[in-house]
Each structure stands twice: as C-alpha cells, then as structure tokens.
C-alpha cells in the first residue's frame, strides 16, 4: 500500500508542480500571475486530443502544435489582460486573468463539445510492476519532466546572463529598460513559457485522465496552493512543494481514508504557511541579482 501511495503521490505531485512552475515564472519576472493557468492546461490537452486523435496528426507534431497555441494564449493574456492594467498601476489583471480562464473554458465547451473524451496513449496502456505496484510508464515520465524542467529553469534564471536579465526586470523595470533590456518582450516571453508549461502538464495528464473543458479548474486551484506553499520565487521550491502535496494527498487517502484527504491536506498547507509565510522555500523580497 505504501509503494502504490508513493507512486501515485509522486505522479500527481509533479503534475501540480509543473503547473505551479508556470505561476512561478511569471511571478519572478513581472510580479503578476496568470490565473487562467488551469485553463491553459486544459487547452493543451484539448488541442492535443483534437490534433492527434481527431485529425490523426503524428503525436509529436500534435503536441508541438498544441504547445504553440498554449504559448500564443499566454501572449494574448499578457498583452491584453495584464499589461494594460499593470501600466495603470491597477491590480485588475487578477480578475481579468480569472475571467480569461472562464471565457476559454466556455469557448472550448462550445467548440470541443460538452462530453469528456478519452485520450489513448501507448504509455498508459499496459501497467508495469514496480515494487509490487502497477505503474504506467507515463507516470514515471511525468516526474522526470517536472524535475528536469525545474532544473533547467533554475540554471537559466540564476546562472545565465539571459536569466539574470529576467530577474532584473522584476526588481526595477525602469532601470532594466535603461540598461537596454526589452522589458515588455521579457515579460511576454515569461507568460508564453508559463502557459506552455501548463499545456505540457495537460498533455501529460490527459491519457491518465479524460479530456474535457472543465478538467483544468481543480488542477489550477491545487497548483496555485502548491505555488504559494513552495514560495512563488523558487523553481525548486515549487516543484518540491508539488511533490510534497501529491504525496501527502495519496498517503492520507491510503492510511486515514479518503474522507480525511482534503481536511488534512489543506490543514497542512495552512499550518506550513503559518510557520513560513513566504512559503517553504521562499524568501521575503529577495533583492539581489
């Protein structure tokens, strides 16, 4: 029971982590987040299904196309729903991005259809035995992708010139602009990366779940809790918090029963934040580049 709970927990946890990384990246660059992340995740899965299953494109092409559209969605959100409000010093981007998610969910419902659909994949057809528990190969791929992306992101942000320019933008956009950094473009790119990450999470989870216009909502909420828990400013923190969240969820369900899952998990989140208000791996206002 322990093995299967750990495997379940790591698989789900890295999924939350992947979406939460999207919250992280826009936050570190622009101090804003896209609350339509859950919807971007749904968009990735729905487009992957539409291109790959309905149109029969080769799966790698379908996935790339889906991710490209997700990135485009991020660009649109940033350009239309975040930038104008931030420029006026307003926090209305908060509500605007929530609204964008609702609009996207409903638009997809009308075009894609109201019924959940199955997304078949060879990687989620035959379970393999691992320490006595059944696992789909895809469940092993998801954590690898999550940890890999967090690693790459950490390296890029902290140890490359390009990454440091990103961080410079959040500290002082005006100074960054004077130093020749294209602030608008940098922020736009961070939003595109963030929605593409969510889209990737959607594509990875789809074969284990089902594809529908409503699938993103719950993931979006849990991923945001994870991002806060990990500390929005740390890529590693977000991924580790995702894994921890997934593990606690699965362990509580296995050993205490499903009735207690939500109560215990969210109590742990509240307790963790009470003890470390900036998240487990966050710092209060980091100010160095």
């Amino acid at each position, binding site marked *: 029971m322990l093995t299967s709970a750990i495997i379940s927990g790591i698989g789900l946890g890295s999924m939350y982590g992947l979406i939460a990384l999207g919250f992280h990246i826009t936050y570190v660059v622009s101090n804003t987040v896209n609350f339509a992340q859950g919807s971007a995740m749904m968009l990735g899965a729905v487009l992957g299904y539409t291109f790959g299953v309905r149109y029969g494109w080769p799966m790698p092409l379908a996935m790339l196309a889906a991710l490209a559209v997700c990135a485009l969605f991020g660009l649109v959100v940033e350009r239309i729903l975040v930038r104008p409000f931030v420029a006026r010093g307003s926090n209305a981007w908060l509500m605007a991005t929530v609204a964008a998610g609702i609009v996207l969910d409903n638009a997809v419902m009308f075009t894609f259809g109201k019924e*959940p659909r199955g997304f078949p994949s060879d990687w989620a057809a035959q379970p393999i035995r691992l320490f006595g*528990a059944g696992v789909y190969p895809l469940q092993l791929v998801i954590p690898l992708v999550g940890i890999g992306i967090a690693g790459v992101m950490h390296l890029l942000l902290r140890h490359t010139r390009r990454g440091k320019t990103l961080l410079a933008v959040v500290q002082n956009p005006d100074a960054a602009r004077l130093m020749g950094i294209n602030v608008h473009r940098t922020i736009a790119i961070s939003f595109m990366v963030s929605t593409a990450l969510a889209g990737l999470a959607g594509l990875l989870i789809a074969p284990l779940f089902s594809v529908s216009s409503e699938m993103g909502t719950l993931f979006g909420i849990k991923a945001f809790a994870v991002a806060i828990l990990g500390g929005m400013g740390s890529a590693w923190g977000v991924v580790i918090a995702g894994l921890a969240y997934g593990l606690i969820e699965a362990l509580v369900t296995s050993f205490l029963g499903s009735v207690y899952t939500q109560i215990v998990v969210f109590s742990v989140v509240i307790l963790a934040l009470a003890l470390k208000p900036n998240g487990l791996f966050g710092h209060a206002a980091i100010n160095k580049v």
Partner: protein
Amino acid sequence: MTFASHVSRRLLLAAGAASLALIGVGPASAEDTMKVGLVAAMSGQSAKSGEAIVRGLSLALDEINAKGGVLGKKLELVVRDDESNPAKGVIAARELVQREKVVAYFGGIDTPVSMAIVPFANQSKVPFIGVWAAGTKITRNDAPENYVFRVSAVDALVDIALVDYAIKKYGAKKPGMILINNPWGESNEAGLKSALDAKKMTAAGIEKFEGGDVDIVPQLTRLKDAGADALFMVANVAPSAQVVKSLDRMGWNVPVVSHWGPAGGRFTELAGPSAEKVHFIQTFSFSGNSNPKATAVFEALKKKYPEIKSAADVTPAVGIANAYDAMHLTALAIAKAGSTEGPKIREGFYQIGSYDGLIKTYSKPFTPDNHDALSPSDYLFTYFKGAEILPLTN
C-alpha cells in the same frame, strides 16, 4: 455612410414589422398552447443528459400535439439550463412557474438540483416530475402535500437491487463501496448500508473520491486490503472511468456492480477495454428490446434527430425513455384533472389508470403513498459492448 444609414433604416423597419407581428400573434398563440417546463443540465459535464431528456419529452410532445394536444391546447416545451447548479436550478424553476406559467415541469440528472427545487415545488403547488435524478428524498420529501412525482429509478430501491445482484451473480460476501463525494454518493451510502443490513451483511469498507480525482488507487487499495470481494460503484461517467482505470493499473480483477453513472457518456472510450466488465443498472435499453413500442419510438427518434444512427448514439437511453413516459403520464394527469391548476393536476396523477408506455404498461402508477412510477422489477442490469449498452440476460 448613406449605404449604412440605408441599411439600418431598413433593418429598423423590419424589426418594427417583426415586433408588430409578434404583438399581433402573441396573445392568440398563448391561448392555444399550454406550457410545460424543463430544468436540466444543458451545458457542462452532464449536458448530454439534458439533450436526451429534451429528445424524449419532445418526441412525446409531438405525439400528443398530433392528436390535438391536451384539453384542446397544444403543449409547448420551455427549457432552462441549470448548469448542474442547485441555486441556478431554483431560479430557473421560479422563472418557469412565475413568468412562463408552466402547468408542470420536469427535472434533470442532478439530485442536488432536484432536491433544491422540491421545497419550491411543494410551496408553489405546481407539479414537478423527475425523469432522471434518483435521490430517494426527491419524492419521499415528507411534505403534507407532495407535488413531486418521478418516472425514474430511486436510490433506495436501486441499492437493494445492486446488493441482490452482487450476491446472486458474484456470491459476494463482503462487498466494498467506492462512491463519489457528493449528495448522490451519500444518498447511496445510506441506501447500500441498509440494503446490506437487511441481508445481515456489512461492507468491507466505504471509500469516497472527488469528481476530479485522477488516481483512485489509494482508496481502492484500502478496499482490497480490507478483503472486498465485489465493489459497488456510484459516480458519473468520467469519475467511474477513473475507478476502472485505477483497478486496471492495480491489476485487481474484482466484480464491479454499478449505479447507472457509466451510462451517461462514452464509458468505454474513457475507461478502456475493462469498462465492459462493469455491470450497471438501467431502467430501459433500446438494444435487445422486443417491445414494438421501443422499435417505433427509436424509428421516430431517428427521423426527428438525423444525427442518431444506431442505438450507440442514444447511450443515455434511460433519459429519453423516462422523459418520454413522464411526458405522456403528465398529459394524462392534466386530461384527468380537466384543468391546468396544480392541485387538480396533482389529483389527476393519482387518477391515471393504465398507460401503455415505452418502459412498461403502467397501471395506477401513482398513489398518495407512492410518487414513483417505476419499481425494482422495472430495473435491468446492462453492460457496455463497444459504445452500445446491452442488457444482461440474467
């Protein structure tokens, strides 16, 4: 510029003419028609159920209107979307009764929505007829004057049937429950417990899960370790599929006896080949149905809705069949009442003698003590073969 003003003037004239026409026709048509309503999920995950109900009601409505309607008036259906949201359902019910002046109205698939409408129905004294939601307390609501009727399964009775089936078919001695965490799951938890009590049995375990859960292995592992020899499953189609996928991954080949959730969508597509192992309850199936009325209704459906080509295209056949019979029974009740007043229609329901319906031949379907037209003897167990629901012979 001139062109634009030209067009808009012409449009204005047309709009004016249209509105005049509407005013002219309006009152006359209101006198000729009698409105019945529907509050159901027309969007969201359960949208297909709403579509099925509309089809069933419309088909019956066409037949009734072709024979001259009821009390000399044509029936007209007014549909409101509740989005599976109880609050929206109550608002929709109010609108139907107070603004649209419906003489009776039907309910959708969601037990929580119907439960929310019940108090309003009893208070406004306009009959509310459930055609899908199976929550026990919808009809057994303890109101002194009960205006809620139902042509569908009832959880308490379904649960007895599920327990009987698990014992008879699989020799289950210690079944476990895997239930969706909402009022529907709770309604069945109570029903299954008392059905097991009646057989002097106890459940190996009772596990709940959320509609959005991807992985239900932890819950199922608990049931397996507790020694469950069969599972009772209560959830809509997508979460039910997650249960089957999780069982597959565990490699646990346990009999699954299910409420009718899987019937609500593309269960085999969502859950994979093991979906066919799940046996679930239905009130009706077009497949393998020798009743000539079933054939006739199916042909009429295909004619009215060309997108229906085979029985696989009407997978939630219960919604169509329940709605079809409910519409006919309601028309009979109004005819018996000889009036469109709610209290008289309510009495009318009790006076219905015999009606040769799609699901069965109803005989005194409603009495003051029984507001449910269907009983366990009308239930049948079915399974998915590909995209089609087939009845099980035993």
